[in-house]
């Protein structure tokens, strides 16, 4: 019989990992199978489900389909010591780190704004030690952490990370495969304390539909302990039952349903509205200094009570209509939907 050995262990901190038995038992005690009306305000959802020290993960990808309404609310409620999944986290993590809510990150992709350049605020926080990178990982490996979490297994094998410093700073392990005898990376599972996902439509119980690519939200939604779904609109339950194959997040994974039209602003909502480049630019400019960060947060977060008020500040319905139109003309046309 072949001998299996642990060849190497990454030295990164293992965050969001649960023993599958412990997680099953948590799920049994805490995840209701009852279809209940879970509609609530962003304020209520955040105060109810996000606790200091929690490991949180945000849906979508980069500046796409991110639940910004909840991100702003977390800042408004001054949640602290959060650990965040840097799973191509861009605007969301930049703001949360800048506001002092998140001080630990496991990084696949963070502190950047893709084409728009590097993040100013969160980078500064890392470079000055205010925010700590606790481990490194890749995008593929991160979503497989959620896949393993969803599947109730402790790890997923993969052939990434091998031979690099990314592996050394990760929480993965390398063994020789019992079937092939070749080295293989074991990526530990992840069950975040809370995930925050913005969707196109959802009923009051939490049965949610996403248009376009699911990115990693199928796995993330199923793996998370608590799940806050924000939605462009709440649809009648009977209607979601008519096309059950369109529901990618069934209600029993969902803890809160928050109706927030334009809830991804200034990010893109695929086939709904485009990136608000003006607003993103404003943030990127202001965030060059700590004073600018304060100015931004004061203006757009602390001095408003709700996402509606925020939407008025960024230009109101007129601006939103323009973003809707841009999304349709730059790519999708209305007929496609």
């Amino acid at each position, binding site marked *: 019989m072949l001998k299996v050995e642990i060849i190497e262990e990454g030295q990164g901190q293992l965050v969001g990992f649960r023993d599958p038995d412990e997680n099953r038992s948590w799920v049994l005690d805490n995840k209701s199978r009852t279809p209940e009306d879970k509609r609530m305000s962003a304020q209520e959802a955040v105060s109810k489900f996000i606790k200091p020290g929690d490991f949180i993960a945000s849906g979508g990808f980069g500046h796409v389909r991110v639940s910004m309404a909840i991100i702003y609310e977390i800042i408004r409620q001054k949640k602290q010591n959060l650990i965040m999944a840097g799973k191509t986290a861009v605007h969301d993590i930049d703001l949360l780190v800048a506001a002092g809510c998140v001080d630990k990150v496991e990084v696949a*992709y963070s502190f950047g704004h893709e084409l728009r350049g590097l993040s100013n605020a969160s*980078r500064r926080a*890392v*470079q000055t030690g205010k925010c700590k990178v606790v481990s490194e990982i890749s*995008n*593929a490996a991160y*979503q497989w952490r959620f896949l393993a979490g969803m599947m109730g297994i402790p790890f997923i094998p993969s*052939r*990434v990370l091998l031979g690099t410093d990314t592996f050394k700073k990760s929480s993965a392990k390398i063994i020789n495969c019992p079937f092939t005898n070749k*080295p293989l990376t074991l990526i530990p599972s992840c069950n975040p304390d809370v995930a925050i996902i913005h969707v196109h439509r959802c009923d009051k119980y939490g049965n949610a539909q996403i248009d376009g690519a699911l990115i990693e939200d199928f796995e993330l939604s199923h793996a998370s302990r608590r799940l806050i779904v924000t939605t462009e609109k709440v649809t009648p339950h009977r209607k979601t039952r008519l096309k059950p194959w369109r529901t990618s997040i069934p209600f029993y994974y969902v803890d809160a349903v928050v109706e927030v039209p334009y809830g991804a602003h200034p990010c893109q909502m695929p086939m709904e509205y485009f990136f608000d480049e003006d607003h993103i630019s404003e943030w990127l400019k202001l965030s060059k200094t700590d004073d600018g960060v304060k100015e931004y947060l004061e203006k757009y977060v602390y001095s408003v009570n709700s996402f509606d008020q925020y939407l008025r500040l960024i230009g109101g319905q007129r601006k939103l209509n323009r973003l809707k139109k841009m999304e349709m003309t730059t790519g999708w046309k209305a007929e496609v939907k």
Partner: protein
Amino acid sequence: MMPKKTVNYNQVELMASVAAKMLENDKSVLVGTGLPVLATMLAQRTNAPNILIMYEAGGIGSQASVVPVSVGESRTFYHGIAASSMHDVMSALQGGFVDYGFLGAAQIDMYGNINTTVIGDYDIPKVRLPGSGGGNDAGSLCFKTIILMKQDTKRFVKKLDFMTTPGYLTGPGAREKVGLPQNTGPYRVISQLGVYGFDNNTKKMMLLSTHPNVSIEEIKENCSFELTIPVNVETSKEPSDQELKILRQIDPMKLVIGK
């Protein structure tokens, strides 16, 4: 460093044109935003109409007319073959369905290993960069990776501050030894000065062509490690007017090309 005589294109356009010509028709390519998507969409309109474009967030086979701003946005699956998930695309990548992959880098060494994580000390970084993203995945799993990056002595380095993504690691056989898939690795490096490949025997970086008006001296001056320089070095082709026209059509806001 810009070409010395006046030309009707900039460095980004030159690099996109050079990269586009490397892509073969009827192959698949994993694309990131920026220069890679610009190059691939150019190839789609010239030498590789059937190129299968894959974005890591789940967009496959997009026919968008304009460059996507983000790897996850709706144009990545516009009139596409599929709008699925990262799990699907990364599985295809790991399963051997992806021929080419593009990578960017802040630092590269002679074996094509790259750094996109940190400049300076890891714990107290001089510059914290975004990290691997899908870079380690592409660099580990694509059959051929093409690295697009700026070249100077601080970027073409003897020793990386951090090895984010594997090139040929320490040389021949090293990838297979650590368990990376067979027959994979860096294929080309394209900088603003030239095009590089890797010597089959040593797996060390080797100059293949210099861009127009760039001397081998300049190439050497902007590289901190010893570069293999063969006797015959070609000159990269300049982008044609037709190519430039297409590039400006697919990036009308000059988001990638620059203003």
